[in-house]
Structure formats: structure tokens, C-alpha cells
């Protein structure tokens, strides 16, 4: 709980807190509405992984690109996808980011740089390279951050994507959010290495493992990787170690997870600890933080109401957006 010489300035610290809290509070609202049966959807909770997205979130510019996965709520929020459209999309409404046609697994919001959310494990990685190629050809210093899990590091797309990025020195940061499980399988049962970051060497790429529950350390590592990419020095593989508090998806019995391990992880809730640390070290007063939380809560209230009161998509929408023109 002591002060950190490596910590960023107060604004950044509070910006990270804001993102983390937004994720945490949004997640809590989703889970409570799901539990009470007020909404129904397939829900992959990102609870426990907030620090990671906040860690890259505060470094990115609006014109930087982010690619993520089905467990992507934290990444969506960290990149600034607006709450109303996000909630409406989760509930399949016409006012959602994707008019209700994509759903939670496919949130897309180019205006905030959230470019692709994919449901196919690992497949976002090669796509992220495409954004990197575009920035490289455009001669801009935009950066692409692509998020994926530990499990994704075992699929072919990971390998092909990292190799291509390394050979072409693409401005892409590969963020492996290692929550120690891929669905019901502990990482050690499926993966030949102990640290995913060790795999970077197979592509001549720098690889680093960071405690993804330590906001300051994560912020530092993400900052370095993003700066490298922005400077045209090529990609980095960042492995951020963390934990999924609520298993793979809502309703998961979690019988395959170690009870004590989970209990310990939840007791070391990184958002709660970070809040305490901010207070303990005088970066913010209880009032400051409570206000941030209140603003978020109000915004969530508003977003939920907006989404709930939004119409379902018009039946004709089934057939639009398949091709540029009307049906072929």
C-alpha cells in the first residue's frame, strides 16, 4: 500500500480509476440484471481483468485501433465505446452500436477506435496486423492494441499473426490477458510454456510478463510497448497475468476452478485495492473517487434505461448490410 515511484501523474491515475470503475460497475449491473432475470443474454464477465484495459486505455489516442474478443466489455469501455450504444447492443436493440445485429461478441464502434470484436479464439490477431499495415502504409503513428486470452496463444492464428507482425515491424501491441483458464481448462493443461511471453522469442519479438492486477506496473509496460510501436520499432507481446472472477460465462458452475484460488483472487480485487491505494497515498480523497463512481453509476442508469426502452431492430434489418447493395 506504499507510494510507487513508478506511478504516473494524478490525472492518469484517476483516469485509470475511472476506466476500472466503469468496467466494474457496468459488469455488476449486467450480472445483477441477469441474475434477477430482467435481461437475458450470453455474458462473459471481465471482472478481475479491469487493470489491463485501463493500463493500455490511458495511453491510447482516439485514432488508435483496438481489437478484442467476446470477453471484451472491459476493452470496449477502455477504448471509449459509449455506454448507451453499448448497452443497447448487448440487449439487441436497434439503437446499439451495431443496430442489434452483432451483439456482445461483436461490438464495433469505429468512432472510438473499437474496430473488431470477434468470437473466434485467436482470429483477431491477424486482423490487428491489417490495421497495423494500414497505419504503416499511411505513414501515421497510430497504434493497434489487440487483446486475447491465454488459451488463444495455442491456436495457429496467434503464431501466424505474431510472425507477420515481427517480420514487417508492424505497430501492433499483442496483449495476452492471461486469466489462467481457457473455458474449463487450466492453462498448464494445455500450454507448453509457463509464461506466454516466452513465445515472443519465436518471432524475434520482445515479450514481457506483467502482473495485470497491478495498475501501475501494467501502465508502465503498456506505455513502453505502445511507445515502441508508435516509434515504428515494431510489435511487442505483453502477457498480463490476471484472474476471471466469474468463470467462463454467466452460469458457469466453476467446478473446474480451485475454490481457494478463486477466493484469494477475489479478496485481492484489483479495483478495490487500487482504490485503497489511491486513498492511502493521497492521490484522491474519498469524495473524489465517490464522485467518479456516482457519475458512472448515473451514466449506467441512463444507459440501461435507454437500452431497455429502445426498439428491437426492424424486421427488414435481417437483410441489410449483407452486401454493400441490397440483397444479391
Amino acid at each position, binding site marked *: 500500500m506504499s507510494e510507487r515511484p513508478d506511478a504516473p501523474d494524478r490525472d492518469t491515475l484517476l483516469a485509470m480509476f475511472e476506466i476500472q470503475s466503469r468496467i466494474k460497475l457496468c459488469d455488476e449491473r449486467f450480472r445483477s440484471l441477469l441474475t434477477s432475470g430482467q435481461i*437475458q*443474454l*450470453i455474458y462473459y464477465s471481465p471482472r478481475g481483468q479491469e487493470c489491463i484495459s485501463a493500463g493500455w486505455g490511458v495511453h491510447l489516442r482516439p485514432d488508435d485501433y483496438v481489437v478484442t474478443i467476446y470477453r471484451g466489455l472491459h476493452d470496449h469501455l477502455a477504448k471509449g465505446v459509449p455506454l448507451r450504444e453499448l448497452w443497447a447492443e448487448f440487449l*439487441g*436493440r*436497434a439503437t446499439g452500436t*451495431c443496430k*442489434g*445485429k*452483432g*451483439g*456482445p*461478441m*461483436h461490438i464495433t464502434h469505429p468512432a472510438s477506435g473499437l474496430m473488431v470484436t*470477434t*468470437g*473466434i*479464439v*485467436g*482470429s483477431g490477431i491477424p486482423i490487428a496486423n491489417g490495421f497495423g499495415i494500414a497505419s504503416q502504409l499511411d505513414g501515421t503513428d497510430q497504434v493497434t492494441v489487440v487483446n486475447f486470452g491465454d*488459451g*488463444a496463444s*495455442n*491456436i*495457429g*492464428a496467434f503464431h501466424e499473426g505474431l510472425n507477420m507482425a515481427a517480420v514487417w515491424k508492424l505497430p501492433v501491441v499483442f496483449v495476452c490477458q492471461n486469466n489462467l483458464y*481457457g*473455458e*474449463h*481448462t487450466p492453462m498448464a*493443461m*494445455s*500450454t507448453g510454456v509457463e509464461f506466454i511471453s516466452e513465445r515472443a522469442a519465436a518471432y524475434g519479438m520482445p515479450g514481457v510478463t506483467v502482473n495485470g492486477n497491478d495498475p501501475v506496473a501494467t501502465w508502465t509496460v503498456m506505455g513502453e510497448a505502445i511507445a515502441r510501436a508508435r516509434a515504428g520499432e515494431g510489435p511487442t507481446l505483453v502477457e498480463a497475468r490476471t484472474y476471471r472472477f466469474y468463470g*467462463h460465462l454467466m452460469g458457469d*458452475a466453476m*467446478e*473446474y476452478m480451485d475454490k481457494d484460488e478463486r477466493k484469494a483472487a477475489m479478496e485481492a480485487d484489483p479495483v478495490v485495492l487500487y482504490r485503497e491505494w489511491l486513498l492511502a497515498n493521497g492521490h484522491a480523497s474519498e469524495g473524489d473517487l465517490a464522485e467518479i463512481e456516482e457519475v458512472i453509476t448515473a451514466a449506467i442508469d441512463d444507459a440501461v434505461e435507454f437500452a431497455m426502452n429502445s426498439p*428491437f*431492430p426492424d*424486421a427488414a*434489418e*435481417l*437483410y441489410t448490410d*449483407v452486401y454493400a447493395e441490397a*440483397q444479391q
Partner: protein
Amino acid sequence: MTDTIETSQAVEHPVMPFAGAINQALDIAMELDPKVYLLGEDIAEPSGGVYKVTKGLSTKYGTHRVRKTAISEAAIIGAAVGSAIAGYRPVAEIMMMDFMAVCLDQVTNHAGKIRYMSGGQTPVPMVIRTSAGAGRGFGAQHSELLEAWMIHTPGIKVAMPSTPADAKGLLLTAIFDDDPVLFIEQMMMYWDVKRYGGPVPPGDYRIPFGVADVKREGTDVTLVSYGRQVHDCLATATKLAEEGISCEVVDLRTLVPCDEEAVFRSVHKTKRAVIVHEAVQKCGFGAELSSRIHEELFSELAAPVQRVGGANTPVPYANNLESDFLPQVHDIEAAIRKTL
């Protein structure tokens, strides 16, 4: 109803969920033959698969025979191919059918062609079990039915059962068949005993491939279907019976081999046919079957064969759109009326 089904009901076999019947078939196959083993993501205990279809099996047979893998579909199917050539009968699970796209090379270029390319020396007796289908709000990448890809790929057999009894009987046949079999399980049926449960004969119960099952007899129009949509056809038949329209429902059960004779027999009687499947209609298996019926029974048909399939779109997320994407009773009804 066919004899098989009647017989099995006559002795009042216990009603099981679809998933339970599959679990039982796997259990029996593993018990019967030490060369049968399973591999796939999350299939071992304690969870027994994300849909619990393989529940209990790793405890009973050990994790060397119920092998939980990394998320590496190409490695899964490749391993199945190699061990099948070496004399095993692997049953690989691809969690959802859309993911076949990440490992299709192993399925079509290898499992499907190796017997042929080797001049018959190296058969590839393996099963790929995969769950599939829309209706669960999973969106465009977790809801597809892609049997047409594999039917267009010579060398692979394809089964797609509609009832727990058929699931068990066909899966046991698939496992002991000497060719690669794609075995498609529509997820909506797994645990919904009320709508999709049914009696399942005990023991080593097998249903031969290439034998369609007339799930309902009728005289005015033939509904040809497979998988979950057979239930929609039956519902439509019940509905139209009130108006005096008599529908025969032919459940193909396996698509490769396909019991075309049974279809022709029925259409010969009714002079009218409607083909129903969940997969996107365009270039789906319905197209092949419709062509075959026209080719063989052109002069007998009272009306052109009609097709009812998924919309020509990715599967949308929003509930109302997803329903509209799927073929529904009212779509089948409309197609039938076109033939009358």
C-alpha cells in the same frame, strides 16, 4: 413412424435428453472397443464438456482416453486423422460448427481425401462431433450449419439426427464406420427434454447409415428434412392436418449417404415436395436434393419442389431477427401451399 421407432416405444424405453443419448453412445462405444478414444476442448472432468455431453467419461475411462486439448482445432483433427490411420477410432469434438472453418484443411484435404489418395490403403475411421445451430442468441459466429461444405467434399459422411434414439443409434454406427463421419448436433436439442427428449433403446443400438426414417406418413405432400427441423415439419404437419392436408415427413438422418430412394418413393406417392433445413438456403443441401428430385421425378411432379432454409444472411443477434433468420412453421406452411 418406422418400425424401429415404434418398436422402441412399444417397450417403453426411458425418455432421455438428446445430450444424454449421445453420452450413452460414447460410453458404450468406449466400453466395446479400447480403440475408441475422445479428444477435444474441455471434454474431461470435472466439467465434462461445456455442454456436459461427455460428463463422467474421463472418470470412467481415464484422461488418456478422454483427452482434453488446447484450443487448437487443426491439431485436434490432425491428431484424429493420424491415430485413425494407425488403427484407432477417435471421436473429436469441435465445440461449435462455425469453428470448423479454422480446421477445415484437416477435415477436407486430409480426413476426406486420404483413403482415396492412398488407393484405399489408409482408411480414416474417425468421427467429428460438433454442436451447431441458431436460436440461442450467440450471434453470427456461433450459430451456423455448414453441412453443405462437407457434402460437397467427397470422402466424408454426414449424419444429423433429430431424436435422442436416432442420435444414439447413428453415433454408434458412425464410430464403428470405417470412414470419417461428421456428426452434427443441434445445440437447442441437447437438454430440452420437453421439446426434444425421447425414448432411447438401451445397449449397443445402431441405426444404419443411408436409411431415412418416415417420421409421419401422409399423402398430399412430402416434407424432407433432418435434424431439429424435422420437429418443425412435424408441427407443420399437425397444423395442416386440421385442414385436411396430409403431410408425410421424411427424416433423412444421414446426408452422406443419402437415402434418395426413400425420398423418391414418398414423392412418387405425393407428387409434391418441400425440403426444410436450418442452413442458409442458397447452395445448401436442399438445392442438391431439389435438383435430384426434379431430375428423377420431373414428369410426376405436380409442382416444383420448394425449399425452406435459413435466410441468405449471417445469423443476426437480436432475438426477433434471429427468429426470422430461422425457418419457422409458417415458412414451411407457406412453401407447402405453393405446391398445392
